[in-house]
């Protein structure tokens, strides 16, 4: 990888995104967004529907162009970074190719890079072991459960050892148990590979559990309203019951309700109510 050591993983400066400019259905999806993701950092984007968090992720991935401002990934313009395959990406739907086996799905990005057959196979094996699906290498996607498909998609995103991982609600369609297990797996993988991650989610506990920093966004127009550093001593099963975890949830929730966390302590809900986080977001 050609990433220079001292550059941040992602640097977003003054980014505005307008869809359908100059037309009656013109939509300002994002305005004046500044965000820096340090190398190895795990950053979550959270906010109500329509706040532009997926749009922001797609801008970083250079799947859509910015209207104003600059996006730099690994010190390069986003387009160059995409062409250099500086990131891996996973969406809410696994998006596996149903005519390929699990193994060949994971090999796909390697294949497109021109990696040799032997190395492809080794690397895909390694990734499938990482997500605990080595026994299913020869299966087709239709033979797997939704959670397993999502793990394959994550293995596929990681297969090229990208310095940056972009994830758009990858666990959104999964049940709570699968979701928590995959969160742990993701943290393990990121820690082991030193990958920087931008993670879009609707879930406050998920954002707090996974992130070094939670970026809170609001809609109409989409913008960043708060950045909350999360400092958890450790992240494992017991973390989800600790006071610092609930404190983090409270701070994110307050920020989502609009208002700096420090100024509106009275609005903090009882700690026990932190679990059903999603309704709070949509309110």
């Amino acid at each position, binding site marked *: 990888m050609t990433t220079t050591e001292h550059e941040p993983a992602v640097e977003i400066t003054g980014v505005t995104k307008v869809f359908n400019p100059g037309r009656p259905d013109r939509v300002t999806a994002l305005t004046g967004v500044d965000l820096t993701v340090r190398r190895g950092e795990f950053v979550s984007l959270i906010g109500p529907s329509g706040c532009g968090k997926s749009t922001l992720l*797609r801008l970083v*991935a250079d*799947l859509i162009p910015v209207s104003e401002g600059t996006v730099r990934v690994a010190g390069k313009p986003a387009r160059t970074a*995409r*062409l*250099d*395959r500086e*990131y*891996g*990406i996973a*969406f809410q*739907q696994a*998006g596996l*190719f149903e*005519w*390929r*086996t699990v*193994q*060949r799905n994971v090999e*796909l*990005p390697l*294949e*497109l*890079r021109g990696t040799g*057959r032997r190395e492809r*196979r080794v690397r895909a*094996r390694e990734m499938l072991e990482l997500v605990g699906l080595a*026994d*299913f*290498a*020869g*299966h*087709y996607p*239709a*033979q797997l459960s939704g959670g397993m498909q999502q793990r394959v998609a994550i293995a596929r995103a990681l297969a090229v050892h990208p310095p940056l991982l972009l994830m758009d609600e990858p666990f959104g369609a999964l049940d709570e148990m699968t979701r928590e297990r995959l969160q742990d797996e993701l943290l393990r993988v990121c820690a082991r590979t030193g990958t920087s991650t931008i993670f879009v989610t609707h879930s406050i506990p998920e954002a707090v559990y996974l992130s070094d920093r939670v970026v809170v966004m609001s809609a109409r127009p989409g913008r960043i309203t708060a950045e909350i550093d999360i400092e958890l001593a450790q992240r494992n099963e017991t973390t989800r019951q600790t006071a610092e975890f609930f404190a983090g949830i409270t701070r994110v929730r307050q920020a989502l309700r609009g208002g700096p966390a420090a100024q509106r302590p009275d609005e903090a809900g009882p700690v026990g109510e932190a679990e059903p986080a999603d309704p709070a977001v949509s309110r």
Partner: protein
Amino acid sequence: MTGAAPAGGSAAPARAGGSAAPAPGRRGVRTALGVLGAVLLGGLVWEGYKAVGDPDGTLLFGVRVLPRADDAAMPHLTEILGRFGDPERVGGDPIWLVVTNAGLVTLRSVAVGFLAGALVGLLLAVLMQRLRWVRRGLLPYVVLSQTVPLIALAPVIAGWGGRLSIGSYPWQPWMSVATIAAYLAFFPIAVGLLRGLTSPAPIAEELMRSYAAGWWRTLVKLRLPAATPYLYPALRLAGAAAVVGAVVGEISTGTRGGIGRLVIEYSREATTDPAKVYTALLGAVLLGLLVAGVVGLAEILLTPGRRASMR
């Protein structure tokens, strides 16, 4: 497919094909039995109607709603089958030989027309997927092309062909017939494949973009594989269309040697030798079944085992 410990990499497809082999085989046997059953049923209906139907046909308010059942209009099946063994005319070859030869002549036009039509359909579909303005501009003409009456078109194609040559090789009449077959065959392929090429979900396309895959790689790795479920029905339609195109093309261009010509020639003798025209018709039917069978077989052979196992 069972969850047997899978072998990785290139061994996997071979294994999948091996373990799935019984499924397509059984499917083939079932199809063959179905065809046989349909033929028997057709024969029963024919003879059954002949036994109970009015020899002069059934009239309702002066309109004939059921055909005549006399021997001139509907010869017995035994008579038709027996006619295959008799010579075409006094001292000539037996009919089965004449019909078979004519069938082979037509089959050449069908095969060439089908392949040419498939190729043209493929190119058009890819072009229309690639360039939106081509799709917008071309698709109406593609649809329009199928509404032009073949009878009107055939002499034009034959006329153009007469002035062409491929290198030093002069244009043959059967090439006009193949062209007409291709003209009918390209349509289902172009439309079906276009549908298939545009079928991948947006995130699959975004994924390819994130891999910095260009148009060609996206076509080969994503669009074409995603289009195969749409391709097979299109190929079957194209096969049938090619047969119809070749037979009708032979008739309307007056090309000799094929089964279409035979149908016309024998129908002139329908009053004196009613079984004869049915031999040519049966020949045309068999030709259609043969082409459908070949396309179906190709589908079974080319389909990975998993599709069979998932159904």
